[in-house]
């Protein structure tokens, strides 16, 4: 689904309870078309290959992208906002199809090392199987330049995970926040690497940005995209009042 200019959104079904039950868990994916030389695309959070309800998440993403006249083979860069399998799981599969470079937050890579070692059993017991990922590059706070004229700011937003990154596109006023905030709620902080205090600080940091499109990591019973400055401001206010006291 085209959002604005070359930005596309592929939302995992889950606005209604019925959808959530049927489709299970997977993240929303976002794509910036023709951002790289050779008309290659940037894909943010590819999601899983297959999820816990046996939904073929990657097949669905490929088919949705195709409906917009784009091809998964043309993905040149995959950016993962954080190292949870429902976000990065399909990275290596898509790399095989497209030869794309794979990126993740630098600090998040430390979590990945732990997760494949001493933390693997704890994560497994919480239902997290950790698929392989071999990043070609790390992203830390700063400027990310893509192709000739696309610029994004990489912002470290820990809380849901230790090295979680957000991607802010100042020209388009778009913020891709992974599992920082949703419509009326926030990412959970009870997974290894999570921190309520860090999440609150990250939310306050992002609330200061000039955002027209807040692109969230999941729908979880509410729309995955929050449009318009006022709506976004209102959402942050709801979270401050309704969620912060319980984090």
């Amino acid at each position, binding site marked *: 689904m085209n959002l604005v200019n070359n930005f596309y959104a592929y939302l995992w079904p889950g606005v209604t309870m019925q959808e959530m039950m049927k489709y299970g868990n997977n993240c929303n994916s976002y794509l910036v078309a023709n*951002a*790289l*030389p050779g008309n*290659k695309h940037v894909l943010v959070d590819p999601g899983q290959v297959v999820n816990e309800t046996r939904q073929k998440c990657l097949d669905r993403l490929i088919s949705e992208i195709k409906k917009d006249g784009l091809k998964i083979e043309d993905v*040149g*860069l995959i950016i993962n906002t954080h190292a949870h399998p429902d976000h990065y799981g399909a990275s290596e599969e898509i790399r095989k199809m497209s030869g794309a*470079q794979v990126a993740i937050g*630098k600090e998040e*890579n430390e979590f990945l090392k732990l997760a*494949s*070692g*001493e933390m693997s059993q704890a994560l497994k017991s919480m239902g997290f199987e950790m698929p392989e990922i*071999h*990043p*070609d*590059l*790390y*992203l*830390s*706070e*700063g*400027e*990310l*330049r*893509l*192709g*000739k004229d696309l*610029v994004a*700011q*990489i912002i470290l937003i820990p809380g849901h995970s230790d090295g979680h990154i957000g991607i802010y596109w100042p020209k388009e006023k778009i913020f891709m926040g992974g599992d920082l905030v949703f419509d009326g709620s926030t990412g959970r902080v009870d997974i290894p690497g999570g921190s309520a205090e860090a999440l609150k600080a990250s939310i306050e940091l992002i609330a200061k940005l000039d955002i027209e499109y807040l692109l969230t990591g999941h729908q979880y019973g509410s729309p995955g995209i929050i449009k318009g400055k006022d709506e976004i401001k209102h959402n942050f206010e709801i979270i401050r009042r309704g969620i912060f006291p319980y984090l």
Partner: protein
Amino acid sequence: MSGEDKELKSAFDIAMEKARKLGGLSAEDKRRLREEELSDIGQALGKRYLSGLSIRDVELELGKYKEDRQILIRCILAFLVDKISLTEPGDIERVLEAIRHFSESPKVIEDIRGLISEYRRAGEQSRQEIRSKLGTARRKALARKGISGSAVEPAIEASPEWLEVKQGLDTSYQKRLKRITLPLQTL
């Protein structure tokens, strides 16, 4: 006869065969068989210890094998030492606790800790060296693909250069670990 019966019969047959054979075994063979059996028991105890069994409970188990206590301790420690990973030292504190309890050998513990720190320092230094050697070329390669900026840092962990250096480090430090823990096999 059900599959389960077959299995039971088969296990019984094996036990009978073993008993018959034991009658004809030399003292040396009997000792070897006993050592194998104790090694299995030691490994199982070591495994249970790493899964959370307390030292006190390990001691209770050892109490059942008064004559073979020392052999069993050697087997447990051999199993635990084998589980020491320099790259992911997750269970290291549990292993060191067992060594401290059974061997009263502070030198071995100190040496293992020292080796792990040294391995980490050497690994980080090599990583930095490889990073500065490959970093510029990788950055240029990414820029050719249209990816650049201050947020970008090329990863070197999957490069053949780093994997080769890491393998060399792992081999040499594992050898040193074996040498350090040798005294535990002669307790």
